């Protein structure tokens, strides 16, 4: 049909572009194969594990990420979206809560643990009354906060990779999430009580805030650099997966929480599958819609 001398247009739209270049800027850009290619490669780049393919996006190590000097030496890392305040706890609070935290495995997240901790710290049994509202929730937040910030210390070990090659983002997300779950080990027998307290209406906003910060920290430490809407979906799905895995962990009796890790890996794999499926459907729908529009235009419809 077409002569070899004339280059074959990539699409109807491209042909229209050649024929009527002046009108093009006025119309919205529809999905052409060219634009699709860039979108597709963008989508591929944001897929977990795909970052190694590109040398431009090598996994960042902690040393290579420039950190704003907000608080020199106060914290070992800095989340790129939420510059953390100097920590929610004052030194006096930290002294009291860290002493009380040691009593949690035996006494749970209770007033008893706080009073015994205050005694251990050389204070009075009345001292925990200084916490606004209920000191128990402060103790739970202490666990959430200290274990979350402790993740930064494990990130080098997590990023080291295997003999097969450096760890990808997805793999590092899985390992960091597992590290965080393992940090619950000492208090896991008491964690159901804590979850019940965190689910009280007045504590829900703070609890969800901590969960969101945890998901953000894990993805940041894993080297995720996405800035498209997947920034939200990744954090939301990781939060949901982490919360589910933590709930699973409270009833897990297998040695070394083997079952919990298997549960976590299954959920992450499902999320990756679901994400891939959504992306494929979106890609197909976008391409089809673009093609329909272009076919209609080729029939002379002014869209």
């Amino acid at each position, binding site marked *: 049909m077409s002569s070899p001398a004339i280059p074959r247009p990539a699409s109807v739209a491209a042909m229209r572009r050649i024929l009527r270049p002046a009108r093009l800027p006025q119309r919205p850009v529809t999905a052409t194969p060219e634009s699709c290619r860039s979108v597709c490669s963008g989508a591929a780049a944001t897929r977990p594990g795909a970052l190694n393919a590109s040398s431009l996006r090598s996994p960042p190590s902690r040393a290579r990420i420039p950190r704003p000097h907000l608080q020199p030496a106060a914290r070992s890392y800095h989340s790129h979206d939420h510059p953390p305040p100097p920590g929610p706890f004052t030194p006096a609070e930290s002294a009291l809560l860290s002493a009380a935290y040691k009593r949690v495995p035996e006494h749970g997240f209770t007033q008893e643990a706080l009073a015994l901790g205050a005694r251990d710290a050389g204070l009075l049994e009345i001292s925990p009354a*200084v916490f606004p509202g209920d000191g128990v929730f*402060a103790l739970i937040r202490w666990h959430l906060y200290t274990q979350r910030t402790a993740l930064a210390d494990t990130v080098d070990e997590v990023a080291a990779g295997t003999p097969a090659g450096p760890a990808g983002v997805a793999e590092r997300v899985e390992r960091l999430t597992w590290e965080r779950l393992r940090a619950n080990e000492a208090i896991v027998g008491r964690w159901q009580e804590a979850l019940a307290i965190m689910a009280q209406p007045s504590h829900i906003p703070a609890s969800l805030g901590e969960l969101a910060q945890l998901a953000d920290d894990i993805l940041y430490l894993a080297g995720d650099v996405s800035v498209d809407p997947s920034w939200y979906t990744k954090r939301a799905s990781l939060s949901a997966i982490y919360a589910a895995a933590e709930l699973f962990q409270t009833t897990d009796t297998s040695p070394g929480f083997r079952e919990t890790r298997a549960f976590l890996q299954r959920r992450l794999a499902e999320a990756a599958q679901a994400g891939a499926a959504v992306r494929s459907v979106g890609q197909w729908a976008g391409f089809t819609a673009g093609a329909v529009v272009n076919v209609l235009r080729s029939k002379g419809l002014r869209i």
Partner: protein
Amino acid sequence: MAARSAFRRALPWLPRSPVASSLRQAHHVPSQRPFSTSLSASTPNPSSSKDPSVPDYAIPDPSRPTHFGFQTVTEAEKRERVAGVFASVAESYDRMNDLMSFGWHRVWKDHFVASLNPGFSPLGDPPRAPQHILDIAGGTGDIAFRLLHTAHVVNGNPDVRVTMSDINRAMLTVGKHRAARQLPASQQAALSFVEANAEDLTKARPLVPYPPDHSTSPDEYTGSEQPFFDPATATTGIPDASVDLYTVAFGIRNFSNIPAALREARRVLKPGGVFACLEFSKVVSSHPAGALFDAVYKEWSFRAIPLIGQLVAADRDSYQYLVESIARFPSQDEFRDMILDAGFVVAGDGYENLTGGVAAIHKGMKPRE
């Protein structure tokens, strides 16, 4: 917002209005202490050389200007006027509280005491330590009785004693009579009454009832004794580091010199002891619902409360002072900074708002040295 500006037009003299701010500017209050109840003295204070760590504003000075509601008076004058206010309202104080706050002050006080959880002690070894609670501005005993109930009944710890202290003998006498009527004997035995000025707790004396015969009301009493504590009659004092918990509920805004009282609280508390204050505060009006609530609350407090005072207690001026003193009291953050300045440490924000900020609980802990 429309309703709010209408209220503002109707009541141009409300706090945050030009009047309140111009009052502050007129006295050249230092900017780092935007609301001090004690304005800096123009003459050097002779006692300031005693302890260089205590700033001038935290040393009581009878001649220094402070405020009494929206008026400016000296510290000594404020002390007398506050004494006059509470001597005249002592009898009707409890009834008036219920009318003014629709009984809600009971909920605040219950929450305040529950959050302090006095007398709580983990079971087991070592045996629990006795606790000494000092209830400053204890008045008619609302807080002290709740503290005793929580400690003795809820937490089952009889090793908790409460000292009720007030500068106003008429109020404290009402409290003593209420205790005799309401409390079981075991709790009465753990309760003591002390007359003292919260700015200088080294001088105190056990309560001598005023009026001596409770059948006369304070208004009719014509004896020679004053209705408020006179430091010259002091026989005892509250020693350093002797108190586990220091509470002051709806009292601290009446103090002539709040920084001095906070430092005195720090002195009498043991290391690790807790300062807890329940006080009227500023309604959080940063969002539309809060602003509307603020406007309604201001309307209620400045129009209805003096009227209720006039009708129920036949004393409009005392209740006018009450609402003005609430309006002049520092905001949550400013008062928290005053607590920090006195050498306490706080947890979190350092305060907890009640009913959208109408009242707030401030707490501080005396750190270990």
